[in-house]
């Protein structure tokens, strides 16, 4: 299978999956927007109404953090399980394993455009109308996509060999939700060293903070840091792809005998 065939297959199957997924529910495609908004509302009720965090524009703050985070967590969770879930196909066709996580990644990505549109709409309604500086979101989205690809490929590799990693990835997502400043502002950490430490070692925290800088604060994030991230994540993504390629036949045996 050449690269073009692989891309066409990934694109076709992820679109088919979206259609099949929507047909299972009464509200169909509407769930693409409804689900992330419901998550945001639950967080809003807990932190603003019950715990009274008292931050200005908290709903917008939450949306700009939770929506990128959901893109990340849904992609990784779905993609990590994608190889083991295709046991039947893997047992009868010679197919590069990288295809499976990519189908999941694209499936979530295609939904994400609509969710991002809602995020932009809410931002505009909060008296932050669209500006040319919003174009700086494009590199952010690309680097987040790279982060998703790198984590998904490595996650899918680990889960296909040792299923226990599925549990660890679920726990990891929970940890990242608390450690990435979704419902709290990373800039409020009193200790500057700790703040720097989180921004350097948790790319998701940096990205979420950067989304907020562009959309809410109308300031610019650190472009050099983003460039470094883009470079490192490309290496990690390549590493994930090589792992899946190198261990292809071992993964097949593991998956079909599980």
């Amino acid at each position, binding site marked *: 299978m050449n690269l073009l*065939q692989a891309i066409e297959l990934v694109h076709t*199957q992820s679109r088919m999956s979206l259609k099949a997924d929507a047909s299972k529910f009464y509200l169909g495609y509407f769930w693409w927007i409804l689900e992330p908004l419901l998550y945001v509302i639950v967080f809003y009720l807990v932190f603003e109404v019950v715990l009274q965090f008292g931050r200005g524009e908290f709903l917008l703050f939450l949306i700009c953090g939770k929506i990128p985070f959901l893109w990340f967590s849904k992609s990784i969770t779905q993609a990590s399980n994608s190889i083991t879930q295709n046991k*039947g196909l893997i047992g009868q066709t010679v197919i590069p394993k990288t295809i499976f996580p990519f189908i999941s990644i694209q499936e979530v990505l295609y939904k994400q455009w609509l969710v991002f549109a809602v995020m932009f709409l809410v931002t505009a309604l909060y008296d932050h109308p669209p500006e040319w500086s919003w174009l700086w979101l494009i590199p952010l989205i690309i680097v987040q996509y790279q982060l998703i690809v790198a984590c998904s490929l490595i996650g899918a590799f680990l889960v296909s060999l040792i299923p226990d990693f599925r549990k660890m990835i679920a726990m990891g997502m929970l940890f990242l939700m608390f450690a990435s400043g979704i419902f709290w502002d990373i800039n409020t950490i009193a200790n500057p060293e700790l703040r720097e430490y989180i921004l350097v070692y948790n790319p998701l925290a940096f990205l979420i903070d950067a989304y907020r800088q562009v959309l809410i604060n109308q300031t610019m994030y650190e472009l050099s840091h983003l460039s470094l991230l883009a470079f490192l994540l490309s290496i990690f993504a390549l590493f994930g792809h090589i792992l899946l390629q190198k261990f292809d036949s071992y993964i097949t045996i593991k998956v079909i005998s599980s």
Partner: protein
Amino acid sequence: MNKKAVTILSANNISLKYKTRSRLVKRFEHVALNNISFELYKGETLGILGRNGCGKSSLLKILTGVIHPTSGQVNVNKHITRSLLTLGLGFRKDLSGRDNAILSAMLGGLNKRDAIQSLDEIKEFSELNDFFEQPVRTYSSGMRARLGFSTAIKTNVDILLIDEVLGVGDAHFKEKAQAYMTNKINSNQTIVFVSHNLEQIHALCDRVIWIENGIIKSQGDTKKISKQYQQFMHRL
């Protein structure tokens, strides 16, 4: 012309061990195939006979290239295309028959446009009618087999490997599938056909390999091996 003259694929001392780790220290090791050697000739229909769990399906997976043997090798020219025809286990249950047929055709090497063009033929051969547009999860096992057979036969390959697909579906479809197979056999297609059904092996194969507990118990002329197998089964 002797059609068995050219070797298209050869299996040399292939063995396959499965290691399953059920817990951290608990392991289960299973020898599925042990030291199997044979040759496949261009244009022949080779039958692989054996009881359930004897290693037939593992052997087919190795011959297709889906898995590699633990030891030994399969020698085949890299330009020789191979395809495994099974009961449609690779279908995504949440997708319709149509979508699955498109994906199968694309996995078989077609681009999307060609895959879509092949749909009418697949739909007609499968006789699924309106079910073709329904999710595969609503299909009976016979319907899944019909879709599997119809999508798999549309790809032109050098070696067609068939895993017990002719035994399912209603009598009418069985007949149709068998007729298709006979036609393929007559058109000089190289086929490896796996079954535990003696009658089908007898009707379709030039030569038979009988596998028991992962080793070749006997191989040769269909009539002779079928007789030995029958006697063995009676003694059980």
